[in-house]
């Protein structure tokens, strides 16, 4: 198992297997609780479960691609932008999945769903982009400082 996890840095398929299966197992818990608490059938929960799995299915391959990009030593700002865009995309997928699930399970009024989606996206996308942009730049700067290099401007 340890060997498989360590190999996931090199093989996207190993990474997808470990990453997605871990995520799906973790996601199963809340959905089982939902099903028991709200007396929803498996058929009713299947759509929202898959919808909530979509952000991870999009982002986990992107993470692997970003790790590979980091090995190629691109410019820090470019890497920071790529992380920012990827995480913003993950945020969009989460918002869409949550709104869809809310409407599908009857927790959200469809009349307000589109407006709620727009408001959530307006909040989520810039926060996600700039949060990861600055986190990545800070990380690369501190690593460069530790190695005795220069900080990116």
């Amino acid at each position, binding site marked *: 198992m340890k060997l498989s996890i360590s190999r*996931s840095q090199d093989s996207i398929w190993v990474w997808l297997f470990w990453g997605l299966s871990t995520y799906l197992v973790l996601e199963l818990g809340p959905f089982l609780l939902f099903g028991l608490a709200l007396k929803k059938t498996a058929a009713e929960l299947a759509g929202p479960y898959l919808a909530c799995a979509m952000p991870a299915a999009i982002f*986990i391959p992107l993470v692997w691609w970003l790790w590979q990009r980091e090995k190629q030593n691109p410019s820090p700002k470019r890497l920071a932008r790529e992380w920012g865009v990827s995480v913003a995309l993950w945020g969009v997928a989460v918002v869409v999945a*949550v709104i869809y699930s809310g409407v599908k399970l009857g927790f*959200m009024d469809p009349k307000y769903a589109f407006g709620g989606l727009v408001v959530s996206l307006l909040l*989520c996308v810039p926060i996600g982009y700039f949060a990861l942009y600055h986190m990545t730049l800070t990380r690369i700067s501190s690593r460069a400082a530790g190695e005795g290099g220069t900080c990116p401007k």
Partner: protein
Amino acid sequence: MRSTSPCVSANEFNHNNLGETYKDGKYTDSLTTGGWTDQNGNVLTNAAANEVGVPGRIGFSYWALESGTGTGPVLLAQNTLAPNNQPQPQKKPCKATTRIGGVIKAADGYITATGMANLAALGYYGSFFIVGATCAPEPGVFVTCPAGLFAGGSLAGSATVMGYGAYKVATGEMIPGIKQAITCTETE
């Protein structure tokens, strides 16, 4: 005889032994009920008669001549009162309490909506921080990335619910409050 009403043409209005007919026989002035009836024999209310434009109930008076011919044109219809000349209801004066109520409602909605939007923004930041900390750092801690995605996703989901709530409060409470304050009409 010619009609004096702009709404009633001579061939639309016919007179026979049973009573006057209107709209090519769709409506009949029943001699027994004393009102207009439709083809099924149902008596028209004043509102319904007015809606279909049958003369003689609201805004019209009429009289028929030459009973028994069954062919017409025998209409005499006289427009005595145009429908638009009905008295308009008086506009109620604006109550200060209605306007103040609207302002309070709008302020309450604004505070709630902005509070929820701020919480949503905080939730998003937290979720992206978790994802960044678990997926973006140095190689070797990548195993925590799926767990970080799950935790961050849960937090982002809560933030999305907050964003939805902020929009709902803004449109359901704040905007009606503003409208109430401006137009001075009670809203639900």
